[in-house]
């Protein structure tokens, strides 16, 4: 785990977010899969767990809070990071109270998200060391 690349799932129904973030996050060697639909993302999660899930909060059909709840129910060690718009900071707080690792408000720089992912990665790795 210590030297393995992170498996990151990115869910946002706005195509541009995945399109721009994927290459930016892959620069550090991590594996990134992008999804525009929550349902497809959750189905993929059932096939293979991810270390980190980055999800937009406002999406049609399945929103970010539901993704958060379902992901944590499937895998308690996965860190979920919520992406919010300007008007949804309150909901983001709700997400934190439900176990989200952190949240980031749009617009943001990939480097800002990378910082959060690094913190999540540290926690994941320290958790791995404690259990081995």
């Amino acid at each position: 785990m210590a030297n393995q690349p992170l498996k990151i799932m990115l869910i946002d129904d706005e195509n541009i977010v995945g399109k721009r973030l994927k290459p930016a996050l892959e620069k550090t060697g991590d594996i990134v899969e992008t999804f525009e639909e929550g349902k497809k993302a959750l189905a993929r999660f059932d096939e293979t767990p991810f270390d980190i899930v980055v999800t937009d909060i406002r999406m049609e059909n399945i929103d970010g809070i539901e993704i958060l709840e379902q992901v944590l129910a499937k895998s308690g060690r996965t860190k979920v990071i919520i992406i919010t718009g300007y008007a949804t900071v309150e909901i983001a707080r709700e997400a934190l109270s439900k176990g989200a690792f952190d949240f980031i408000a749009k617009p943001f720089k990939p480097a800002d998200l990378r910082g959060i992912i690094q913190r999540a990665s540290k926690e994941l790795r320290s958790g791995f060391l404690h259990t081995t």
Partner: protein
Amino acid sequence: MNILKKMKKIGHKESEIRDFCIQTIRFKKFLENARALLDLFEDGREKALGEYIFDRHYVVTLIDSVVERLGMMVYDACVLLPESGEALYATYDTHKRTAENLIDFSGFVKKNISSGDVTPETSKTVEPEYQLLSEVLQWFNGKDAPLHSTVMAFMKQIFSKVVQGQGPNEIIKNRPLFENCCGKIPDMGIYLIDLWDDGVALPGGKSSIHDFNSIPLNHLLIDTGARSVPNGADWVAAVGEYQLSLNSLRADFQFRLVTLASGDADADFIFVFADNAAILDTLLPPGFHIENSGYGQFAWNLGISEKTIEDSLMIIGRNLFN
């Protein structure tokens, strides 16, 4: 004292001074809305540089915010200059329509892809969100945009109208009123009006600059020598603790300075208007953005630190009064 008694107490001269104070405060509000618009332009420009991840929602929110602020600015202008209301609101409506068309733009691209007018390859070259933001920036202040069609051009038009209508000629007309209130030969040749106290009661008791607790006024005059103006004042200043509105009373030198020096860099600003007789390049310290119009020159410095605002006002004061 109840409101009726207070109103009865306010005499004719007091109500004129009160009107002057209200107009001064409204003009500051007008500038604050203009400043908020410039901040929105800057935010959009920053996001367009390519480093940020944003979605369509951001661009639509930006457009909505600009329309809302522009509306507030137009409202302020109409309060200051009611007779210009119809023309300003007509232009404002045009901008609202432009904004609506811009928001529809992404839909337009999608529609045309499905109908075959625009090939998917063409649309792939620029992401729709970036394309939309680029269009929005053109509408704000684009060099390629048709003349007078930008928000910036409209802002300049509003500024010119307000400054002309509210301008030095109007203020000069009030000279007898200021003289009555502040004495024939005031300290430093500046009629001083307390924005908050003198609006409800005739100025009295304060005869010297030192009687006024105004941070920006102190900065402005800190490096100026004693000044005697035997023929009466050539300036009028409306002041608050953090606020200063300085106006020339000379017909041959039109000058207006409005500043907020609260110590909060995000809110503080200096705005200057001068006719073409003044050479703002030499009058103002570096760091000001200067715009020329047919009517005169507008200059502003926004988001400035406490130290910069202090230094800037000191330099302007020295150049104006020494």
